[in-house]
């Protein structure tokens, strides 16, 4: 069964999409089969992987109905030009979907259906990475319920901390409503512009406050990130040796997502010319 990981923070711009894309790419290069689900109507992640505006996915099918076979879910997933990366892309339609889900939720426990439908995919993928919209909605609830790990990127400020507190409320609501035991996996800091006083102080505070749930691997800001977000290429394709890429690799290792065999594959790629 695939492990489902969601990147969620109700604060926008903290690096959810960049993290989702980069971590997916690292795992895919190492040999794992990855499915990225883009639930952000802004479609950044989908467009990086080549999707145009007019895609025809019946989201209602995936979110509002309980499917019974793998094919009914698999048919909406597309292959990308990157090996081992498949994509369930977003669209502007996702905004409308929220209202549909709300309607159905009055009579059915519709927020549980995405989890059910993703489970039909079985072992087809090793990891399913969900890039969520910052806007808290039924889509986020569906993603939270479907996830094995919920990870929150935060910036060096209290805006993103506030987003985290709101996420805790959401998780608690869903646990109570459906008697689940959704857990928060951890948070990590992104867009670090150097070992500033504020960074060091916030890092220490997060460590004291959240203990094991604070992931002490921070992602340094580097120009390659902005540049790759401009050319719409995944980070390692653009510059596999940049500092942010190195930090993301360390993050993947820290989270225990990669075993030695797969790490060797990654090492080969990093050393090579491709």
């Amino acid at each position, binding site marked *: 069964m695939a492990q489902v990981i969601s990147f969620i923070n109700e604060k926008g711009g903290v690096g959810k999409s960049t993290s989702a894309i980069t971590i997916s790419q690292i795992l895919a290069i190492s040999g794992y089969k990855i499915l990225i689900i883009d639930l952000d109507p802004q479609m950044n992640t989908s467009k990086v992987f080549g999707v145009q505006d007019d895609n025809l996915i019946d989201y209602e099918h995936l979110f509002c109905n309980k499917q019974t076979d793998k094919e009914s879910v698999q048919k909406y997933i597309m292959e990308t030009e990157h090996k081992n990366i498949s994509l369930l892309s977003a669209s502007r339609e996702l905004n409308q979907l929220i209202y549909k889900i709300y309607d159905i939720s009055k009579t059915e426990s519709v927020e549980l259906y995405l989890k059910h439908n993703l489970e039909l995919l079985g072992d087809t993928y090793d990891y399913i990475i969900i890039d969520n919209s910052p806007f808290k909605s039924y889509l986020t609830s569906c993603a939270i319920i479907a996830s094995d790990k919920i990870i929150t990127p935060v910036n060096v400020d209290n805006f993103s*901390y*506030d987003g985290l*507190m709101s996420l805790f409320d959401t998780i608690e609501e869903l*646990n109570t409503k459906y*008697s689940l035991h*959704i857990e928060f996996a951890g948070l990590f800091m992104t867009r670090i512009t150097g070992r500033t*006083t504020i960074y060091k102080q916030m890092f220490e505070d997060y460590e*004291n406050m959240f203990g094991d749930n604070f992931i002490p691997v921070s992602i340094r800001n580097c120009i390659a990130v902005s540049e790759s977000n401009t050319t719409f290429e995944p980070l390692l394709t653009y510059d596999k040796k940049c500092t942010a890429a190195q930090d993301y690799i360390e993050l993947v290792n820290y989270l225990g997502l990669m075993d030695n065999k797969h790490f060797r594959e990654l090492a080969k790629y990093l050393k090579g010319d491709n």
Partner: protein
Amino acid sequence: MAKKKDFHVGRTTNATLNAAGGQRLQQLKAQTQYNFKFIEKDKIISNPKNEMYTQDGIAALKESILVNGLRHNLSVLYNADTDTYRLISGERRYHAICAMTETEYNNMFPSGIPCKVEPADISEIDEEIMLISANHDVRESSMEVKRWEVSRLKELYETKKISGEIKNINAEIAKQLNISERQARKYTTAEKLIPELSELLNANGIDLNEADKFGRLDEDAQKSILHIIQLNGSVNNEEYQTIKKMSEDNAKAAKSYKSELDKTSQKLEQQQQLVESLQQQISDLQNLPHEKTKEDLQSEITFISNAKQKAEAEVSKLLNKIDKMQEEQKLKSQKNIAVSDADLKRISAQAKTEQALMQIENNFTILKNNQTTILQNVDLKTRVAILKERIEALANTLEL
């Protein structure tokens, strides 16, 4: 002078944020450990898997709850499709609460019944395991129910072992029922008891340790044990050891009989093959063309015929031997159905005598070590003298 930089997570100048993020997360974690909820009785339904557990004394339980309050939360599992909660443990408490009047119920449980909500995403097997474990924790079960619990858990865990989820079934059972692994194994051995002894265990006529000992004996030995218990009410260690030894001796004898029979049968087969091959040789000499002279031929045929006769005699002998062995074994097994009454009395008496002798031997050493005390006390000295006479009289009757 520049202001000293002091930045903190959750702390702002205008204090608009909840700075207790760590505590918030701890709360969240606590909820996943023990999810507590007040639930209205209409949303709770019985679990068909709780059939095994008795539902008696509901009226009395209701009174008890009205007086003392509900001591233990119910344990439930949420079903999102029907928006109801299925009972894992607490059937009796639930039925007792439902037997209350509306007024009584509303007074006792204004927000609903206090429940622990178990995590919803568990398999059917895990649900049943949880159910058995939860019931075991809150009920004082009879031996019969406990045995059922262990055997049912064994079945459930067998599936998990096949799928590779667990390694040691007895260890898992021990964990669920809060007993030692050794204890769990005793229940397994107890399943090998003959029906009468099994029922005796259920009725607390024998305990689990005895059941464990007896379960290892063969059927006949167990029948003997049963007989002794029926005569004397219990079986002591010497009697058990004697029967165990007999059982082991029987097993040894049966093993040696079998190996003897196998050996003899093998010899028989070899001889029969020899007879066949000699016969073939004779036929060849008589029918096939060859270059030997008539006299040579005749003497060769005679020689082989003699060998063949000897072999046939040997075959006959072996067949007889096998018949005899099987006859003897049949008689023996007919005799060995169970130890006779006379034998049992003998075994019992022997065991009692051995026990008594052992006690005297032990006590004799004590007397010997206290010679000074005896010498200084007239009463004691007299009693030892009387003892001496009694032992001498016994020795005489035994002609020692």
